[in-house]
């Protein structure tokens, strides 16, 4: 039953949204590899395109958006961008699990969790529905819940942390091995956050998953992710092993983000907010570096030429200033 954790290769992915000003890119030319069995974290501000990127993994970008270029190759499944209709539907849930933000109501309010579990099983042609229920109960029990009781509950009878665990259960119960968690701990209290992250880490290891965590909270990434990718204005500006990126950030945006974190010890004023505001879909530059408006290292070349993502050791950075320094 248990498969090898699959790898995921996102290559040159561009997602555009149709607006009155034409089709504007929310994600532009993003390439990212999720190594089999790894946890990758994507951090970015609101509007950086991280959720759009997450939905692209299931080829589920909602209209008026669409994937206009690139591919998402998943081992054992092929290019998800090319999947249509029933093939795509069956891939969702069975191969790729998606866990919603805890604050979102991802359950039908009129049906018990158990009935929705059966709907899920029937949708995917599961013949042994009893086995499915048993598996769900075990998963919930594994996450510290009374499985039988939760399956018999409606959404409004569950707390935020319980709902999130139900979401994780529904994402995994069909034995999906690629799991996308979109803001898994947003709107949860600190204790529950820590609990959920612990569960994510443990379940990830036990079931042999390849996991992608989307968050705006660097703390969450530091907690769970092996690798970290930083998004800004629809571009991936820096990626690498979590420790290295957080320990010695190279891209000016990553540096700015880390400088903005207040320390537990020392002067609170040492934390410096990044000046300026992130671009929106309409204000993001059409050419050149997306970060230049807020960048201290801005050069002439930044206005016209897109910085390419350059591999530097274990790290990939897309910045003219960093690249120049390396080559100088």
């Amino acid at each position, binding site marked *: 039953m248990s498969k090898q954790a699959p790898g995921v290769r996102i290559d040159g992915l561009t997602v555009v949204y149709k607006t009155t000003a034409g089709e504007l890119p929310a994600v532009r030319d993003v390439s990212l590899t999720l190594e089999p069995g790894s946890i990758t974290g994507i951090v970015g501000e609101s509007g950086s395109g991280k959720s759009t990127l997450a*939905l692209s993994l*299931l080829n*589920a970008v*909602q209209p008026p958006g669409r994937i206009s270029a690139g591919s998402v190759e998943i081992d054992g499944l092929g290019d998800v961008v090319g999947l249509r209709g029933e093939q795509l*539907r*069956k*891939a*969702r*849930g*069975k191969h790729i699990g*998606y866990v*919603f933000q805890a604050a*979102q*109501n*991802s*359950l*039908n*309010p*009129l*049906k*018990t969790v158990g009935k929705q579990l059966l*709907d*899920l099983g*029937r*949708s*995917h042609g599961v013949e042994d529905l009893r086995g499915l229920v048993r598996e769900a109960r075990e998963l919930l029990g594994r996450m510290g819940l009374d499985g039988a009781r939760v399956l018999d509950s*409606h959404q*409004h*009878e569950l707390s935020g942390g319980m709902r999130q665990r139900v*979401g994780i259960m*529904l*994402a995994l119960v069909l034995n999906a091995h690629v799991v996308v968690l979109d803001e898994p701990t947003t709107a949860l209290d600190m204790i529950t956050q820590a609990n959920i992250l612990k569960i994510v880490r443990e379940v990830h290891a036990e079931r042999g998953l390849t996991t992608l965590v989307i968050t705006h909270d660097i703390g969450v990434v530091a907690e769970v992710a092996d690798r970290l990718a930083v998004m800004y204005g629809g571009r991936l500006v820096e990626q690498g092993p979590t420790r290295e990126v957080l320990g010695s950030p190279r891209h000016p945006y990553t540096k700015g983000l880390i400088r903005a974190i207040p320390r537990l010890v020392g002067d609170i004023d040492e934390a410096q907010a990044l000046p300026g505001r992130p671009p929106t879909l309409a204000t993001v530059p059409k050419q050149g570096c997306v970060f230049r408006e807020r960048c201290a290292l801005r050069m002439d070349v930044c206005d016209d030429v897109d910085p390419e993502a350059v591999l530097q050791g274990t790290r990939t950075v897309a910045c003219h200033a960093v690249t120049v320094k390396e080559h100088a």
Partner: protein
Amino acid sequence: MTVIARRLAGHLARGVVMILVVATISFFIVRSIPGDPVAANVQKLIEQGMAPEAAEQATRVLYGFQPKGTLWQQYVDYMGGLLTFDLGQSVTHAGAPVTDVLADAAKWTVLPVLAGTLLSFLVGIVMGVYAAIRRSGKLGDVLAISGSLLHGVPQYVLGLLLSAIFATLIPILPADGPVDILFEPGFNAGYIGSLVEHAVLPVATYALAAYGGWILAMKSSVVTVLGDDFILAAELRGMKRSIIFRYIARNAILPLFTILALSLGLLLGGAVFIERIFNYPGLGLLLIESITMRDYALMGGAFLLITMAIIVANIVADLFYSVIDPRVRSGEEVSA
């Protein structure tokens, strides 16, 4: 199940209290309307040249009506009668019991209104779902515009229009009462056929008048549900389309059941114009008639019946809601 039974008991108790309050209010309001039908009749007879004594006597014989006691005494008698479903006697219907007169009229209101409302509800919600799903296309526009237009036209205008077109311009349907008097009332093909034929226009009027509201309400409800997170979540879990459609439909239809139950209650009294246009001797016409004739007992009875319909509709809506919506159900459990 016990939760629902307890709920029902609570509602019934509240309903009975409400009905008693309404009966009291309508009793006093009706009697505070100026004018006295018996005195009016006596006056009329005197003017026709009858002696006062004889006129009074004749009036009493005519109505079978003996005003007795004070207002308080009348009230106590009235409420006492209520308990045995005795609403008194109608003055205008030559002493027939009010309950009989009401029951007779009710059948001409309840059946067409029920048929029209259910028809418009079914067609309206189905069209509403399409209007929502195809809201960015031509079909959606056409449906939404048809809904807005029909919703904006008053019921009586629709009734007049249908009557003018189908009973006068192209006389293919009757608009002259509930049934053709040629047929023997009873369970025979001719009579029932005639009933149905005569019901077409009024039922169509009720249906068309309500249809616009249903389609618009259902459309907006479906659009709201479509934007809910759990629909996207179901899609991302790879749920079958048919299952997702059921999720949408069941969640979207929920608020409409309340409106349905309430409108059924309201329509009982709101059919005055339609009944006049199509000559249906229903409750609406009866109410108007009782007011112009100052038939106290009948007036009070009609008010009471209309109020009771609304109260019962409320109870039904609420009970039904607790059956179909688990959130309402468990809310009761907690407080019990």
